[in-house]
């Protein structure tokens, strides 16, 4: 099994390499460049030429890729084209913020989603199941920015319990930070909850008809034990896959929530960089995000191998 897992991890790294190339050349393909984006409406051919020359955008792309990759391996992502600051220094603190937000949201949403999913599956068709399923459906049908607005309206504007902005800065105490981040976390939890919840429920229902579940009941095990110990491990693979997907989303896809709460995360950084065609920053963010996704997927795959003994035998 160890070999299988190691192989899987190796493949993850290879994927990342492919992603890096795709990112690099893909972003270079995007129409427009930093010069044009910097100038906006004021882009005159002469001004464009000046900037391009100053930034040395004339080298062949593959050469720049190799340079970039070499640097990236040493943690050096180059300098930003717009601000001339080192990209690493720009991305790192933001990435920290993003990870904080994502991990808090994950910490709340994963147990709640899986827990409620379990509960719904156990009481299929019951009141709790109906209620949970209705609520979760409502929450996913609302766009995330709107969830954010509504939460702000209620908790910040009307009740005044929490700040409407989640600006983070050095001088804040932990309590202040937690208060500031509460609404974005709540928004994200609401956004990702339903998917994991419903997948947990349906994956469990699918295995609940298996003979070994019947047997577990015949051993006199209480319902909770049966579901947790016998059904859950057999239903785990799709649940893990969905959880990984949503965790990935929490890290990579929260630009909208960042914008609504003015949270200084890496998503906003990337969006700004894309619109300014600040490619070193885009590529660094993209690579970090890709690493997150690939990492999460790799872990999910490994977990699937671990929970299903049959997958351990190499075919």
């Amino acid at each position, binding site marked *: 099994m160890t070999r299988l897992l190691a192989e899987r991890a190796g493949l993850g790294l290879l994927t990342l390499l492919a992603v890096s190339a795709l990112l690099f050349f893909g972003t270079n393909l995007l*129409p427009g460049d930093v010069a044009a984006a910097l100038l906006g409406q004021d*882009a*005159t051919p002469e001004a464009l030429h000046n900037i391009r020359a100053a930034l040395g955008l004339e080298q062949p792309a593959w050469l720049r890729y190799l340079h970039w990759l070499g640097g990236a391996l040493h943690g050096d992502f180059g300098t930003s084209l*717009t601000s001339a600051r080192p990209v690493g220094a720009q991305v790192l603190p933001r990435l920290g913020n993003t990870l904080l937000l994502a991990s808090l949201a994950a910490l709340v949403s994963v147990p709640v989603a899986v827990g409620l999913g379990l509960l719904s599956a156990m009481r299929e068709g019951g009141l709790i199941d109906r209620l949970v399923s209705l609520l979760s459906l409502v929450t996913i049908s609302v766009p995330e920015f709107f969830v954010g607005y509504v939460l702000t309206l209620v908790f*910040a*504007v009307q009740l005044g319990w929490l700040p409407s902005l989640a600006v983070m800065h050095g001088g804040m105490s932990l309590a202040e930070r937690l208060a500031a981040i509460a609404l974005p976390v709540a928004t994200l939890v609401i956004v990702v909850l339903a998917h994991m919840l419903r997948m947990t429920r349906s994956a469990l229902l699918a295995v609940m008809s298996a003979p070994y579940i019947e047997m577990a009941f015949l051993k006199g095990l209480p319902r909770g034990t049966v579901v947790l110990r016998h059904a859950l491990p057999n239903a785990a693979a799709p649940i893990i896959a969905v959880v990984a997907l949503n965790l990935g989303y929490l890290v990579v896809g929260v630009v909208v929530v960042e*914008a*609504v709460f003015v949270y200084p995360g890496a998503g*906003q950084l990337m969006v700004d*960089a894309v619109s300014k065609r600040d490619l070193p920053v885009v590529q660094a963010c993209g690579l970090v995000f890709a690493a997150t996704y690939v990492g999460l997927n790799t872990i999910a795959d490994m977990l699937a191998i671990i929970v299903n003994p049959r997958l351990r035998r190499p075919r």
Partner: protein
Amino acid sequence: SVPDDTPASPGGALRLGMVGGSTSDVLDPRTFIDWVPINIGYQLMNGLVEIDAAGDARPELLEEWESHTVTEWVFKVRRDVVFHNGKTLDADDVIYSINLHRGDTRSPAKVVLENVLDIRKLDANRIKITLAAGDADLPATLSDFRLLVVPDGFTDWANPIGTGGYRLESFEPGVRCITRKTGQYWKPDAAHVEAIEIIVINDPVARVNALISGQVDVINRIDGRTANLMKRNARFQVLRSQTGQYAVLAMNCESDPYRNNDIRLALKYAIDRASIVKTVLNGYGTVGNDQPIPPGNRYYDTGLGQHIYDPDRAKFYLKRAGVNRLSVTLQASEAAFSGALDVGVLFQAAAARAGIELQVKREPVDGYWTNVYMKAPFCASYSDGRTTVDGALSKAYRTTSSTNDTNWRRPAFDELANQARAETDPAKRRTLYGACQRMIAEEGGALIPMFMDHIEAGSQRVQGWRPSAIFDLMGQRIGEKVWLKS
């Protein structure tokens, strides 16, 4: 209404919630393109010339000016002004700061200074500027927000040194900026608040929420609907500035069918400006008349007839152009101006009644200025208010202008505009500018449906706050001008 402010009192922290900041922001004036860095720039540094509430040029670091011919100007540099680093301001600093935007530079202000032939130091406190062509409005031209003054030879843009009332404390691009009072500002009766915090809030709803929930004192750029609602709440004040900012639907006069002025006129009569101002701006704006000078301007030609919504007249022009049914596509995006797509949709409905089939094509926000603007034959765009009429005309209507987005070229117009620029007699100048306006309105490729007001809102605590003639937030100098009711 005349606000009844409390007397100016020092202290407190002013918190601004602003749209217009990005993570790529740098405090180098040569890179300024959006509001947040400009506002910070004015906190840390001073400009050469200031525009007052009436729209007139007022001395700032350039204390006095005189010109015998309109091509040669002598400016006196203000004495006894000290930079944050202790250096005293002199002519060299001013010349260095202006020259940052001349010659080999990436500064967009280069265009503004193109007419400048030479800047020379006369003595420690006097400089002489020589122009290629006469410009009676040079001082106003020098009020450009990028022309901020730093010490001679200064390059450390991460930590700009200026003569402003505030010093940089922390700056997180696209997130937050804090400045603190230096305590030794040269302007009298200015820089009241102890500290200024700017929080970048690009999302419009979040901005309003931040104000309502008391996390910021002032926000910029709210829309008309929101303004009306905020007005009903006594805790807030709403300010409206008419700055000459306008929306434009630019037709390329060198491509079909817009080549034909009758087609252009047909479109100009097929749009219902009044209902657009009412619906899209909620009344916070003025009907445009297809030329860039707003009604409040002293050179505005009142004699020029207003283009109104008149389907029959539009049909008449169509017929004259020899077409029965006109089918055109307007390319638009929220990047052009906020509400551009709504304007398109309203235009579409109105044009249909004039027998014009108008398609509105939504273009990506990303890359709009590169991929669509100046490339599409008919697209949405906007223009800031300009401090001078010449600025407004030069920007998009002169043959040589690099942002002539309608490809409308009339040597006669250029001639008229040059004459007007060098003309010092106000009456004669008014006549010349009137002719310019008429020419653009009747022959130009710009369909200018509306002038859009700037609306900003804030808490009643903020005192000494007034509408501005240019940009919003008191020409982005709100930081040094307002104080807080304790």
